[in-house]
């Protein structure tokens, strides 16, 4: 609290001084630290791609701002992540930390950035705690969260007739939350949940769980897990003929890189919610192709696209107020809507949630796919207002106070 006040005071001072001095950006350079997983489970969906996206955003911004990009691997370890963040801020003068997948690391970084008035935008983290109990005035949650994923998929699938569900849930808080959120949405929309099975994290063999799902007779099997667990479950569901048997798979957290890893043969028919699909509009195609040129033809995930969009928006705001204080820039960011290839009329709410449209997509069959990375049919657009947790439900102190 004391620190926040201090930060406010500093910001006020800076605000007063802006009129007199020209550059109030500390040491004349804006430093952006891309902190994510570069060696583990989330390296493909964030990793180097996020660094490339951030660099593109800086290049595209042009202008006379001097911007530097740093990157580091937090190895999915909260202590590694938070010590890198601290060191960046204390020693290198980093002004913005971006990306940070893995909830535990993002929460640890949140602690550091809010104590030091540094801006923090998460594109890769999923937990809604970042905009609830653990929210901070220096923070923006850009791309997605567990609520958006579960609401998107849960509601849209039920509306399309998938009204009985069986959950395959990773047995830890993330999975439980995803399951609970989706279950609520499914039931609110008139569907029913006929059962669920909790599997241990990092299970290699899903066949027994799939067998239980199969014998439940549910129309939809919701995969409330992530990463390798999701891809393995989908791959094995395919070999047990689950989709062919008339059941539908819904991945509650799936990325285009997962689909790529599985191949369309296996992943076809899968429904999932995403914040971005590269082949949706001309603008998104244009960005993605430039991205692909630098990434051996890989198309951006929603996390990569989110990083670009967030960095661009941050730079605009920082240039506008000519300041790099965390709260100051984030406050400025909140006043301007986000309009780019990633989000149309996106809006950053008081709790730090950037709300934008989400898309329910279904993976194409190999026959439908006409070119590399041509993977999704967009089934529905979930409007920003419905996709995210309503502001009045937020337990964030910035909202409740």
């Amino acid at each position, binding site marked *: 609290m004391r620190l926040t006040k201090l930060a406010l005071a500093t910001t006020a001072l800076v605000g007063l001084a802006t009129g007199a001095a020209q550059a109030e950006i500390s040491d004349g350079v804006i430093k952006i630290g891309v902190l994510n997983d570069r060696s583990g*489970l989330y390296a*493909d969906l964030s990793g180097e791609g996020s660094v490339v996206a951030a660099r593109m955003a800086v290049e595209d911004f042009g202008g006379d701002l001097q911007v530097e990009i740093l990157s580091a691997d937090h190895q999915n370890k909260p202590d590694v992540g938070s010590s890198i963040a601290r060191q960046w801020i204390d020693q290198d003068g980093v002004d913005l930390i971006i990306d940070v997948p893995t909830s535990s690391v993002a929460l640890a970084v949140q602690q550091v950035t809010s104590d030091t008035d540094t801006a923090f935008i998460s594109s890769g983290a999923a937990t809604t705690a970042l905009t609830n109990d653990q929210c901070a005035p220096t923070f923006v949650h850009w791309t997605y969260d567990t609520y958006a994923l579960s609401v998107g998929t849960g509601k849209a699938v039920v509306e399309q007739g998938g009204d009985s569900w069986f959950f395959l849930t990773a*047995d830890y808080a993330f999975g439980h939350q995803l399951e609970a959120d989706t279950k609520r949405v499914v039931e609110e929309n008139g569907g029913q949940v006929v059962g669920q099975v909790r599997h241990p994290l*990092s*299970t290699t*063999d899903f*066949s027994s769980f799939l067998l239980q799902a199969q*014998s439940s007779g549910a129309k939809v099997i919701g995969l409330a897990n992530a990463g390798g667990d999701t891809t393995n479950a989908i791959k094995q569901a395919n*070999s047990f003929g689950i989709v062919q048997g008339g059941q539908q798979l819904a991945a509650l957290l799936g990325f285009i890189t997962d689909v790529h*890893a599985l191949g369309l043969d296996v992943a076809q028919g899968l429904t999932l919610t995403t914040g971005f699909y590269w082949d949706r509009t001309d603008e998104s195609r244009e960005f993605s192709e430039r991205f692909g040129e630098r990434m051996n033809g890989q198309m951006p995930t929603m996390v990569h696209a989110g990083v670009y969009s967030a960095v661009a928006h941050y730079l605009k705001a920082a240039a506008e107020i000519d300041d790099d204080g965390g709260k100051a820039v984030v406050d400025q960011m909140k006043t301007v809507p986000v309009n780019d290839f990633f989000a149309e009329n996106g809006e950053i709410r008081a709790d730090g949630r950037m709300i934008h449209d989400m898309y329910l997509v279904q993976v194409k069959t190999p026959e439908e796919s006409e070119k590399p990375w041509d993977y999704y049919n967009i089934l529905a657009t979930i409007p920003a207002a419905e996709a995210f947790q309503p502001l009045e439900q937020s337990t964030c102190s910035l909202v409740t106070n």
Partner: protein
Amino acid sequence: MQTILGIPAPLLFGQLLIGLINGAFYALLSLGLAVIFGVLNVINFAHGALYMMGAFVGWFLLTHLGIGYWPALVLAPLVVGAIGIVIERTMLSRLYDLDHLYGLLLTFGLALIIEGLFINYYGVSGQPYAPPQALQGGYNLGFMFLPAYRGWVIVASLIVCFGTWLLIERTQLGAYLRAAVERPELVRAFGINVPLMMTLTYGFAVALAGFAGILAAPVYTVSPIMGQNLIIVVFAIVVIGGLGSILGSIVTGLGIGLVEGLTRTFWPEASSTVVFVIMAIVLILRPHGLFGRPRE
């Protein structure tokens, strides 16, 4: 419908069958570990990484050279075995006179290197690998749908396990191996080139891991981290069976597969912990494992 302990019988049989399939993988991997421990006195922490390599060799052959599953089933173990031979000659063989902790630590380091390199080049999302044409589809067994490929996994792994067992327990070569486990020096003084035999044994045992890897490629995602979690479970199995016991590792591998299958039915959350619980209990009651005998 008939039920057993509240679980419909067909579901239970299905789970047991699936447990057996997993057990088949466990048996292949733990067999290799047991052979390596028995003959070289090394706990091979790199086994998981080499298993992963087997899957990757298969994927590489298919994607870059257009070589399909069946040739890969032979080539992948050969490649992995050759890598194993290099590892044994250049590094492991220097450690035999030392405490076996050093072997464990060396192979732990090797596992980190191998996995790190693969992550660097291929990422962690994994690569697709489809089962061969002949083994696509499956059979309806009445109580469950058995994918043909999984049936093949059981058959192939049982054949290889049983073959290895025969080789070790029923042939002259196996007698050399068993004798060398007890007194390598004396066996050498009988005129047998024990160091060469150790090299080949390591090569063979990691080739088994490579075989398990290519066998697993169509079932699981081919990913650099596929061996990471498996290896710990397989360790536990070898310890339960009794370090160095060939038969023990095979039987325990299959057994643990079944127990896991049952646990998944009755208490899914505990299914990956159950093996460690069993291990702790076994070690308390029988300090040398179910089939092991004390060694000096």
